[in-house]
């Protein structure tokens, strides 16, 4: 299990998520979002990040959570990720950005295959700093899956 050295933590539907801090390019207040009709809920819109058109994705959808309305603390985390082997810039919605933390010394466990409301393979690991429950999502798998779904939708249409 590869755990990043430093992570950015953020809140989503009452849970805490953590992603590799190295992948984060910037954190934005929610910009104007252009909805793409017919796009999957997971990536339903586009935003303008310094002249680049970037898809905005919502992990809440992938994890089947309640999708909160954008509030005062809502932010967009712009990350650089591999999507099917290609480096891609992607925006992630976060209810609130919490902290950048070092992972050294933090106990980390595999995701238990049962007893969770989410797909276990979407979770790379669970970190337990001071008894908290922090989800390290497998972004690459989530992106790849949602692309696959988009392709299937297209075929079905």
């Amino acid at each position, binding site marked *: 299990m590869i755990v990043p050295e430093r992570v950015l933590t953020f809140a989503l539907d009452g849970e805490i998520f953590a992603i590799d801090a190295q992948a984060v390019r910037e954190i934005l207040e929610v910009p104007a979002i252009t909805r793409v009709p017919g*796009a999957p809920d997971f990536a339903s819109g586009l935003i*303008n990040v310094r002249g680049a058109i970037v898809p905005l994705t919502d992990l809440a959808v992938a994890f089947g959570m309640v999708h909160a309305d954008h509030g005062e603390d809502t932010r967009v985390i712009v990350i650089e990720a591999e999507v099917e082997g290609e480096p*891609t810039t992607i925006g992630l919605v976060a209810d609130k950005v919490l902290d950048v933390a070092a992972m050294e010394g933090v106990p980390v466990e595999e995701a238990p295959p049962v007893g969770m409301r989410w797909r276990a393979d979407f979770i790379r690991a669970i970190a337990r700093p001071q008894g908290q429950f922090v989800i390290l999502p497998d972004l690459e798998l989530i992106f790849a899956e949602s692309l696959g779904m988009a392709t299937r939708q*297209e075929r079905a249409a």
Partner: protein
Amino acid sequence: MSEDDPVAAFRVEAGELLDSIEAALLDLAGDSTNTGLVDEVFRGLHTLKGSGAMFGFEALARFTHHCETAFDRVRKGQAEASQALIGVVLSARDHMQALIDVGTQGDPMLEMAGEAILSSLEKAVANSEGMAVPRAIQTERKGWHISFKLPPGSMANGTNPLPLLDELRGLGDCRITPRLDEVPPLASLVPTECYIYWDIVIEGDVTCEDIEDVFIFVIDDMDLAITPLIEEPESDEPVEVLPVATVLAAPQPVAKAAPPAQESVRVAAERLDELMNRVGELVIAQSRLAQLATSSGPVNELTLRAVSEDIERLSAELRDTTMAMRMMPVGNLFGRFRRLVHDLARETGKTIELVTHGEATEVDKTVIERLADPMIHLIRNSCDHGLETADDRIAAGKPVSGSLTLSARQAGGEVLIAITDDGRGIDRERVRAKAEAQGLIQPGAVLGDGELFQMIFHPGFSTAAAITSLSGRGVGMDVVKRSIESLRGTIDITSTQGVGTTMTLHLPLTLAIIECMLVRVGEGRYAIPLSVVEECIELPAAEVTSTARRNFLDVRGELVPYLRLRDTFGTDYPADLFQKVVIVGQGRGRVGLVVDQIIGNTQTVIKSLSRFHAGQGSFSGATILGDGNVALILDVGNLIVAAQKNQRLLGERAGEVA
């Protein structure tokens, strides 16, 4: 542009050289005594050899050297530019391309293939006018005796004898003897003077000019004696022709090709200057603006407007200049087809005359690159199946030689490229029969020629062997159509039986920036490429509330299907009271797009959609608007298809009800 990769630059340059060599060879085939063309081929080969060696393409330099020698002989009237020689040098040209592709590390297999070509080359040169074989003589050891002394003061002025000696060593095996007898005693020695002079014996395939070239900068003032080491053999008596090895076919493309060169654009220096000037002006305008912003007191509105206008003009000019850098004359593209037509003529045994017009018409570089394959297919089609054999042409009372015309011209925001042959034309009855058999059209349906000929673009249609005049090779015409559409272009066909066929490609001038009409549907703003917009009308009141099964508009007597984009995009934002219809057309299709509001025209820089949305059929890309928001660009071709499908479904349902 990769500034630090001369090898990449060499590849680009070599590609251009090979193209011009090929063009000159093809011209020479029809005009074998044209010395200008011979010179051009010679110069091209000479440059290729020279720069190839410079960038480490040694196999290329060695190989090219032989072709250069052959053409040098033609140039000096010692050999004839025969069809055989031109044919061999054309295949040598392909081999040179392969040597460039394989890179500097070389490939022994490829070089063996080269030997076969060289054998044919020898034969071709030897056969002409009983002239001798060049290689046999050229490789014979010979050489020169050189003695030189630099002019006084030349060392202080930057002439260094050491590189000169190195350069001589580069020409051939050298024995260098320095002569020291003029070196003065130390006391009277001027350190910036060169007192040493040299005697050199150089052996190898070196000409007197090669040696003089080494000393070019000082030759007028220096002492230089060059005498041949041994007498050159008189080539009066023909030398025996070397046994010719079995000629291999043209070398296969190398599997282990070098990685593709980084994409670069060659830009005329004057365009760079122009760009630089604009940037200069922009900097000035910007500083004026900054001054206004920091000045205390009220800002003069007129001054501000003047600056704003300046910046607007400059950014428009900058955009045009920058776009112009991406433009290339289609002549580059047409040039490539000369070889194709030459080869096709040989293959089919037909005489084909290629005529080109409008080579100077400029098109975006990307368009040119992506146009090559579909055009090859169309040209092949015309030569293979459009043009008749000589016998058939005579029987039809046509000139024996078939003609294929490539022409390009600009019309508005489009470039039109036409491929015209004077062949037998498309047999519309056979196309119709085939289309009916495949269920593409109703038996007896009334169709115009344009509409009927579009049938050949249906997948599986054009490859049908029965319609010989249309059958393709490997890929069908549907692939051609798709690649043209991916460039936001269309294809028109006109054809008269017995007279010929013209395929016209309509292409956008440039891909990166397009003029768009901005519309609003619900909350979202969308861009429609202006090139496909035919007109805008108000949605008739009767249609606004209509839930009728038929969604047709009567536009001056013509029924046009329409799509309510509010439904297509699933918006629940309140609809505008007055809905507008934008009538768009592409190729044969025409459809009305119902929108809430027409906002106006805008210039947009097209950006591709993210991978998450690339599969959304309704959009071809996205763009950033003046206020920083993202707007989607409608893929009109796909929407037309959707509308037509929609109509069919509605029609079927209506049928079920009835």
